[in-house]
Every structure is written in C-alpha cells, then in structure tokens.
C-alpha cells in the first residue's frame, strides 16, 4: 500500500516536472511580453502593452502575419484534401504494395526538419519556384498531409463498412454516397485535420525559413528580430503565435474527441 503511494507521488512529480519544463519558457515569454522593462529580468517592471502596440504598428509584422495566415489556411485545405483521398483509398480498396504506400505517405514527419527544408529548397529552386509564398504552401502541404490523413483514417476505421453499401442499395451512386455518407461521417475528422494542419504550418520555422525567400512568415520574422537585438516584441509575437496554434490544436481535439464519445455511445 505504502510503496504504491510513494510510486504514485513520484510519478505525479515526474509528470509535473515535464509540464514545468515544457511550459515554463512559454509562460515566461507571455509574462515578459506584458513587462515594461526592455530586458527580461526579475524583479519585473510594471504591466505594459507597449510591445503589443509596437508590433501592431509595424507593417513588416503585419505582412508576415498575413503571409502566415495565407500559408496556413491554404496548407490546411490542400493537406486535408490529400489526406482524405489517401485515407479513403486505404479504406475502400485493396491493392498490391498497400503497406509500402501507407508507409511512404506517413514518412514526411519522420524526416528531420532541417533536411526536409534543405531538400525542399534544392528541389523547388531546381524547378524555379522557390522564394514564393506558394512554395511554402507546397512544402507545408507535404509536411502536414500525413497528420490529416492519420486522423481521417482513424475515423474511417470506425465506420461500419455496410454504411457505404447501404447507401448504394438505397439508390445512391458512388459520388452521391461520397457526398452524403462518407464526407458527413468523416466531418469531425476533416475539421480536426484542417485545424491540425493549419496549426503545424502556422508555427513551422525551418522549412519556411529556407523556402520563403522574401515572403517571410511570422516564425521567420521572429528569428530575424532575435538575431538583431534583444527586443521584447519577440515575446509579444511569440505569445500571439502560441495562442493561435494552441487554439487550433484544441479545436482539433474537441471536434474529434467529442464525436468519438458520441459514436461510441450509439
């Protein structure tokens, strides 16, 4: 009994420590973004929104934010469409080399980002399309499609295969079945896929830095500011980026998990 309690406390402390290490830097960044002092030192100065006012008045940051928005939303749509098609082909058809096919699709997130970024730069510049905003979209779609596909595939695996046949049986053509049965069934997973792909793309740095050229996204701008000098603006932008990504990830969770609870009840 006693040793079990000690173990529980130790494990709890361990988990607590992990959370502290992961979130402490972010918490500090948020705290210092509202601090009036230029240097991040304790004791803190007074509460201030100075840095936020500063970034709001900086056209470069506005431009970067807009770029990030365009890139992440386009990436989300492309990655989710690709992910859906792949997941459905896996659900519906049996073919030779299906195992390698799925493995290949799941590969991109396992490649170190820096290598992926270099490879993307080399490849896109060979094709003469690097340094554009949509070259970032291409690179990010490759990176995020596996996430969307994994979520949608999970959802399709929960589907009674008879549903599709039932729709045909009731007079639905294959396209009508796709529109009225498969997509509605996958809707929660599709929405989470969109959110997750957008979140990954929105705060991705390495690939964007290599591929974006002059069309910088927010994470790239952050690095440039940090390279120049110590500027609490970075904390303000960081806070904004962090909360945007977290919101998207949490939305993804809510959509997917809630539907799962609902469908297991039935």
């Amino acid at each position, binding site marked *: 009994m006693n040793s079990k309690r000690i173990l529980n406390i130790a494990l709890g402390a361990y988990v607590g420590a992990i959370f502290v290490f992961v979130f402490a830097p972010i918490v500090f960044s948020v705290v210092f973004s509202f601090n009036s002092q230029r240097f991040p030192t304790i004791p803190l100065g007074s509460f201030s929104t100075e840095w936020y006012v500063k970034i709001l008045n900086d056209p470069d940051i506005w431009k970067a934010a807009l770029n990030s928005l365009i890139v992440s939303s386009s990436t989300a749509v492309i990655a989710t469409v690709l992910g859906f098609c792949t997941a459905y082909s896996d659900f519906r058809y049996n073919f030779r080399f299906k195992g390698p096919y799925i493995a290949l699709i799941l590969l991109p997130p396992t490649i170190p980002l820096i290598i992926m970024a270099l490879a993307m730069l080399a490849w896109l510049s060979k094709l003469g399309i690097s340094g554009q905003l949509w070259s970032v979209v291409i690179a990010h779609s490759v990176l995020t499609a596996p996430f969307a596909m994994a979520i949608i595939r999970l959802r399709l695996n929960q589907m009674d295969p008879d549903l599709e046949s039932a729709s045909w049986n*009731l007079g639905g053509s294959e396209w009508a079945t796709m529109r009225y049965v498969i997509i509605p069934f996958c809707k929660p997973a599709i929405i989470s896929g969109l959110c997750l792909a957008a979140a990954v793309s929105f705060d991705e740095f390495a690939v964007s830095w290599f591929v974006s050229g002059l069309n910088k996204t927010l994470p790239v701008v952050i690095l440039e500011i940090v390279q120049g000098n110590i500027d609490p603006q970075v904390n303000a932008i960081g806070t904004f980026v962090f909360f945007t990504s977290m919101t998207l990830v949490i939305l993804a969770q809510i959509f997917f998990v809630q539907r799962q609870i609902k469908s297991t009840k039935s």
Partner: protein
Amino acid sequence: MTKPLVILEKVQKHFGDFIAVKEINLEINEGEFLAIMGPSGCGKTTTLRMLSGLEEPTIGEVRMNGQVMNKVKPHERDTPLVWQSLALFPFLSVIENVEFGLKMRGIDKLERKKRALEWLEKLDILEFSERDISTLSGGQKQRVALARSLVLEPKILLLDEPLSALDAHLVIRMQAVLVQLQRELGITFVYVTHSQSEAFAMADRVVIMGNGEIAQVGTPKDIYRSPQNKFVAEFVGRNNILTGIVSDVKKTKAMIETGSGVFSVILENNSLKKGEQASFVISADLVHLSTSEPKTDNTVYCKLISEEFVGSMVTLFLEDQNNHEFKVQMQERELSKFELKPGSKIWLSWSLKSTHLLEVN
C-alpha cells in the same frame, strides 16, 4: 402468387479459389415470403447480396422481371436490403434516414417528408422522427431500418438476419410486424436467417442451403415432415435418423436393417431395391414411450441419458445398446407419468406412418 419475379439460373459465386455458392437454381414468386435458411457459411448471405447487386455472379444469371441483372449496379436496382447491422446513418436523424433513398432518387423535399412521415406512422415510430439514431432502442432502430427500405415501395424487400440482434420477446413481436406488413403490402420478402423458428413462423416457402447449394425448397411443413436428405433432416433438428440396408421390399413398405434393429418404413413414391443402403427419419415428436415391450413393429429398448426443457415441451436424449442416439419430444405432463431418471430403461416405438424415407444422398 405464381408468376416468378426473380429467377436465379445456374448461379455460382467464387471468391478466388473459394466457392461460396456452387450452383443455385431458384424462382422467387411475386408476393411470396421466402426464407433462405442454413448454417453460417452456407452461401445464403452471398445469394442475397447477388440479388441486391452488391456481388456479381461469377457464373449464371440473375433475372428480375425477365431482365438480366448481372451487370446492373446496386444503385440502379430497386432491391432495398435490411441489414443485419441495420447500417443506419448515425449522423442523420430518424426521418433523414428514412428520406435518404427518396433523396437519392431526386424526389423533392416536401414529397420526401410526407412519404417518410407516412411510413414512420405505419411502423409506429412517428414520435421519434426528429431523434438521433443513437438514442433509439434496438427494436426502434429495427423499425427505422424497415421504414427506410419500405418507403421506396419496392417490389421486393431483402432482409439479412434482421432480427438477430434483438431480445427474444422483441423477435416474436417483430415477426408479427413483418408478416403483417408483407401480407398488407403484397410485396416479395426474401428473408435470410439461420433461425428455424423465424423461418418457419413467417415464410410461405423455405429454402434450405448447405455448402453453397440448395438442399431443399418447400413449405415449412414439407421441410419439417418430409426432409429430402440427411442434411435437411439434421439441420431441421429433433429428427431421429437411421441408416441401414434394405432387407425386404413390399408394396407399401420396406424393411431396413440398421444397427439398432430391423424397422419397417413406409414407401411413398420411392423405389428401393433389396441390398441397397437407405436412410429414414422419425420426427422426435412422433415417438411413443412405454414401460413394457410393445407388441408392434418398430421398437427400440433405450436408456435415458438426459432431458432438455423448453417451456412445457421436453426433449429426451436416449441411447440403445449400440449407443445410437434417439430423441423423443413430448409434453412435460405426459412425461411425468413415466417417472424417468437418467439411466432408466424404457421402450420406444413409432407407427409405420410416422416414418419418412430420405432420398439417398
């Protein structure tokens, strides 16, 4: 009643090397309630799926109304199916589920709603029309599945073990609902089941399938009282099956020598030759018990092994001196007169007209 609506001609279905349906010839009449019954893996569901177009016959033809259907896609047919899993759309409400087929057929919104409501009312689930599927009970879901198919007003309705997920008392209720619907609508029902009680309670004709082939087609009574072969006799159950060599053939009966003794068997249209092997059955409910040796033909002295109660009916399992099993079915109150215990010895007997010769298989 007599016009065939569907004809299956020399139909076979292969999945790779596996032959699910060996060769089926079957006519399904307009307006009949046909049950296809057999153990799992006998090809009954595959046959149903070929009727709905979800599987295409490898060999042979499926014709409906004289038209060859082999290449017609499922959504181009009018053969709604009630699924074993029900396959209701979980993201649609009850009424949206019922409207689905009409929507696919391009019927406008108002008309769709009107017809769906009519069927929900007919099946007594009108009050649930706006509910989520997940909030319904098993019996209510079953009714939604029926309404979803019947709203299309098809000529033929296919049912794949639709009652297998329900509680026993609901099964009886739904059987009554199904039979009443079928009589009222006058449409053809093709009902696949492994349950003898469901098939016999509802169907006009029963098809018994085994190993991808049809073993017998007939009315429930035909199949129960006059099984054509051992497979049917065993599958229908509660039959005593005896096999032996014909020792004598007379005008209306033959003598067959089995391991349990020599028995007389009635000859109907069968021709038997002396020395041939033959099998016959005596239905378990036609066997009598007596404590002293009866002064008739067809008697066996047996030892009681066990009893099985189903309501007021009892099935006795007995063995003769060669350990051949016999089954006797009777009312519990009749049995109590004999005061039997496991191990008790008793005489079994049956009349000549209770015997039924199997076609040699």
